[in-house]
């Protein structure tokens, strides 16, 4: 990937495409699973797999990697990729997928045609039902690789025919490592707090992180915290951190100052409460107090989700946090 940056076309690509891993080594996160898949890429005979996980952790990338390495040059004829933008009704399963499975493609031994069903949880149940026996009958020639966000939406018989691999969110360090790598390739000016801010906004989603990085770089050039938060406009975690510290110190006036400022800036209460929670998760206060804080935040979040999203509710949250701190 980064080898041919010089290519003019590629410079206009979004970075998520430009730096999409083509080798297993470059895939960040979920190392154990990815490493095992890399074995299959060389040895062949991969079983049917389902990769489930949140967005932006590399499910599709992993599957495409596998297919590319496994099939090499015959990728085009031996891979059928269907995602949610393709029609995947019962008819398609009964005709298109079956036709593909019946096709004869000369492949080296131990290699199979691959049907990639991206976003498989958006397939209708009927289509999945129609798929189940097909998966089995043609297993000697065709393997299936499914990617989905939630495994619950995949019907039991399909799950039963696949090995379920669960991907989790990337850790912050993993995202950060990749960001540094990309920043170096792009020769960006970056500061630590800038990258950290991107990591914070990414929330374990590599795609989001890269997008934010690119936006900041193209918008402002330098990657520092200020610019990052200009691009991804969120309630500033530093402010919120300070606010929570004020609450922990039972100083509601100072805490309210910050909240009022954020409110004046026009952030939605959902954003504010979300960032309060994420900051509170990491904040360095007494664990018991933190537990109480999280509970109060959860209650307020519930109210906000229900539609009671006024400044009053957030102020009440501050008051409750202060009370909890006082009791403590």
């Amino acid at each position, binding site marked *: 990937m980064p080898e041919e940056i010089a290519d003019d076309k590629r410079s206009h690509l979004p970075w998520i495409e430009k730096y999409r891993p083509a080798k297993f080594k470059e895939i960040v996160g979920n190392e154990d699973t990815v490493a*095992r898949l890399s074995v299959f890429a060389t040895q062949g005979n991969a079983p049917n797999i389902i990769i489930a996980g949140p967005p932006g952790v590399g499910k599709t990338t992993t599957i495409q990697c596998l297919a590319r390495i496994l099939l090499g040059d015959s990728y085009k004829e031996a891979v059928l990729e269907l995602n949610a933008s393709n029609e995947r009704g019962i008819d398609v399963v009964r005709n298109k997928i079956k036709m593909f499975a019946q096709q004869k493609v000369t492949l080296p*031994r131990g290699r*199979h045609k691959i049907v990639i069903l991206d976003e498989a949880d958006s397939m209708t*149940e009927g289509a999945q039902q129609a798929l189940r026996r097909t998966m089995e009958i043609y297993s*000697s020639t065709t393997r299936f690789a499914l990617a989905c966000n939630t495994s619950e939406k995949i019907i039991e018989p399909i799950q039963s025919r696949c090995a379920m691999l669960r991907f989790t969110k990337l850790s912050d360090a993993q995202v950060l*490592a990749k960001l*540094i790598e990309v920043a170096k390739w792009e020769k960006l000016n970056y500061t630590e707090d800038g990258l950290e801010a991107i990591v914070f906004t990414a929330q374990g989603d590599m795609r989001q992180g890269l997008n934010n990085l690119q936006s900041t770089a193209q918008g402002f050039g330098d990657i520092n915290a200020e610019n990052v938060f200009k691009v991804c406009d969120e309630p500033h975690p530093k402010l919120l951190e300070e606010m929570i510290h004020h609450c922990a110190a039972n100083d509601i006036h100072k805490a309210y100052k910050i909240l*009022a*400022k954020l409110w004046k800036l026009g952030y939605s209460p959902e954003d504010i409460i979300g960032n309060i929670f994420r900051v509170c998760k990491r904040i360095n206060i007494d664990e018991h107090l933190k537990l109480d804080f*999280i509970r109060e935040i959860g209650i307020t979040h519930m109210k906000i989700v229900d539609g009671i999203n006024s400044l009053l509710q957030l102020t009440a949250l501050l008051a409750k946090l202060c009370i909890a701190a006082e009791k403590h």
Partner: protein
Amino acid sequence: MTDVNCLTSEHIATATTASPPGTPAKNAGKDLDEPTSPFVLRAPPSAKSKLILQNMEEVLHSVKQKHREKHKRKREEKRRAALLEDQKKSSQEAGRPEKEKPQPLREKSSQENGLKNGRRRSSPLKSSTPVADNQSIMKHFAKAGKPENLAASPVNTAKAKPATNVFEFMMNARNRSIGVNEGGAESPADPEVASEAATPTTKRKLLLQEWNERKGGAKRRLADESRGEYIEVQMEQRAKRLRKMLTKTDQKEVMAPSSAPTDSTVKRTRGRPRSRRLSSVDAQPQVVVEAKSQNPETEEFLSKLSSPTKKRDSLLGYFAKVESPKELTEKVTIAIETPPMETPKRRTQRRKSQAETPIIEAEFTPSSRPRRSCAGKARYDYDLETSPVKQQKTKLQKAEESIEVIDLDSSSAAATPKKLAPLFVRQLPKPSPDPSVLKARQAFLQSGVPDKIRQEQNRQKNYEQMYEESYEVFPRLAHIGCESFASSNEPLQLPFALRSEEEYVEVATTLPFNKRRSKTSSITSCLPADFTSSKSFNKFNYATLPQLENKRGFVKLWKNDFDRFPTFKCYNQMREKYRHFSAIDSAQDTQQMGESLVVTRRTRRSMEQNMAQTDEEAKPPPSAPNGELLFTEKYKPLLFEQVLVNLTPVQELKEFLSAWSGNGGSNRNSQGMDDTFDMSNDSASMGANSNTMVLVGPSSSGKTNAVFTLANDMNFNVLEINAGMKRTGKKLIQELQEATQSHQIRKDSKTGGGSSQQLLQKLQKSGLKAKAAAVEPPSEVRKSLILIEDADILFDNLDAGFTDAIYTLAASSKRPVIVVATDPNCAHLQRLMQQNVVHFQPPNALNISRFLAVLSLMENCPIELDELISLYLYNQQNLRKTLMELQFYIQSGGDPSGAKTGGIKSPTKSSHSRLATVDGSRIHQRFFEFFTSPQNIQHRIPFPLDFNLLRLNLTELMSSSPLLKEQAPGAGSRNTAKRKSRSPKKAWLSSATGQKNDGYSSSLATLASFYDNISMAALMESDCSDRLQWHLSEDIAHLLVEQALQTGLAAKECPYNLFDKPAHRVTICEHLGNGVMRSASAKSLDFEPTLRSICRSEKERAGQERKSSRFYHYLRNHTVNVTSFTMEYFDAACSSFQTIPNSEPPTEAEPKD
């Protein structure tokens, strides 16, 4: 007074000659000078205001007291009749000379006359009432001269006011219904006017009389006359009484007593409810006088309508209409309109209505129209525009004058007393005729109308439509309240001091924003080291596993552990297969393809013998180190003897099939035998449906495999129908017709695609050919078997007739039909299921773990039993999935790290000891961990929080909590013992009461806060039902629980049990989605019983009918998850009401070998 006169004269002019349409505008211009001009604006004759009026009218109707009204009206009718009698006589005398003039038109016009009144009321356009009202007001002002005085000093008592108010509405409404234009005509100053006005009325009266006589009303008249006399007497008495009362109450009212009798009659003929008893007596007569005074006007108007000039008038109306569109548009744009513009428009509208009336007139009989409907409409206006006090005052002044006129005019209205009866009796307005009928009439009558006029009309209509469309129902600018809102912005006066918002903001902006971070970041979990070291992740190095040399040694060691499991048998089988496939692989390398070999018992025997001598190790070919088959295919049984688990149902199936294949051997070859067998079979004790068998069981319990195994073993061809094929009823029958009706199928007959079974057989054959000699001739006759897979899945729109086809097949087939279904409560298979069912169940965990252990050994990767069991249970006893994952794990290199270190111990701590190992090799671990634990982030609890699991784990967590142990009061030993029991709270409950004061030292408090947190987390978690989105609340709940476990209980070391899921309890609510009904109680009250009863009835019905998913379609609308609605949830719920008959546990495989 001047303009009143002007108006009246004008009206007369219109009655006799066609007056120029400009005059009303002039009048209105005068109105503009008056202070009450805003009134004109207030009542535009739009549809909206009409609606409002109607609403108001309803309210007023409810106000009035009907029972009293009725009571009164009867009396009044009588009185009125008498009065009219008198008046008739006088008017006849007066009106005779004029009668001849309008003679030619009389017949028609008289008919139209009454109609016009009626028609006008229901005509869609507003009648001229506003003008009339306006005029009447003007008149009052003119006469009173000083309205402000009157308003300031109310003459009447406060008590009388409301009563008179109501009465006035009614009177005014009545006037309007008659069609009064203005109320000033009663003026005695110009008697000529009155007499002139009388001429048309007398004309009409005569006509009515004539009519009456035609109908043979002579007798009736006699009766009426006598009645009239009686009433007259009564009236006299009444007048006296009234006079008495009046003189008693007020001096002023004495002037009016003479009018009292007539007033009351008029008033009551209209049937208006009067609050006579409520109102003070002094108020009443005045109002009556007023109402009376307007009477002549009504008569005038009527006469005008019936006059010969009317036609021309209406034509003029058409001309006037041309300008009305402009006004309409003006009205939209200009908020405040000047009255002179308004008035002509109304005028034209009224004229138009006049013009329209002849269209419908023909149908109606005169006087049959009740006059109230329109009256009601108009009342509202009146209420607002005139204060009753003023009117009373003005009336007082001219009360005497008006009396004479009344006598004159009112007679005309009642020319035919007999005819009047329905007028009074009927209360409800006649329902407006059917619009279609109206249209037809209109079309008929319009046929004579010149084109020009019609075009005008159309244009008018278009404009009206445009107007209505462009009219905003909700005005964009609502100025009401804005000002007050703006003005209320002043700061609140609080008893205590608050800091202002600005202060906060000011201070907050000065916050140090970009201070250099100290050492560790607090907003993310990134460490400073991460910034410097670019890559520090340890990549695992996986490679294929080396061949194990001493597998047999393992098996010998394990044999002792695996009691009751046919270890050696299993091992031998697997070894055979393993070797076999390795052999195939190597054989295929050299392009040796064997053909037409069948694995039967015999061949297998010989093969076995041959194999026994070969060396143990058959290396897989280097090109495909992993082979090219799935474990599920590779290790599936091919013969009945190879079936190791789930034996009982397979045995049943075998019995069923063996009845079809006779002696079961493959050596039967005569067609005749086959036929006789079938015939004997048909005549035997088995029922008509004995050719079908239903296999029911959860997925991956081996249903399909059992069929293929037996088919292979007993030499059947399998015709498979599955959900991946088009399987409409027609196609199904077509394809299988031949198969079902003939007795043999060629081996190469088309089956449903290249079945894996056949492929496998091919592979096996080729391998066998390489090794051993073929025994069976390829031309062997095989019987066929129909396998219908996924029969419980029904795509409504695509698989039409599928169920019917199954039943047809079952009824007519001469081949065994095996139906495979997952759902035991499948509605459309119920009838089949009542006959032959085999229930499959997932295999026993212990057995399967041993099977898996041997298998993994075979694959050179021995895995701990615990791990296998754990994963198997975690997968909810899904063998196929476990096999898949096992393959994934083994073929990707197993556990790379030195296995001896025990990572996370499996919580199923187990009686199973570690498997013995032969020295030099190791047992792989972390199998279970790989598939369950998250890899990037350190969670202890799996992310989608499962509270069922948590509940199970709570006991263990609590018992291992050091925090609770520390805080445990009293004797430690006793409490630890108790804590191990399920409910340790009780012990603390008793003790904790003593030391409740300290929040954090009491174990009860700790526990309470823990439970508090958990329940709060559960509440948050339950909020989100759709997991496709990212849910913050879920995140919060998860963290809360984890945090609570860590800090609240400090249970750090305790393992978290993952796989021990309880039997899933199915509730209907779970599957209905939260969006439909939010509260759980509503759901349980509303949804559940209904759905349950629906399910029950559906199931009952399904037993008798074939098509049975009718009501489920309705249910589909109630689920949020539209795409995935099946009956399975409901059936699963229903299954709790039934006990599945299959109670036999899965047998523990065969005895040891």
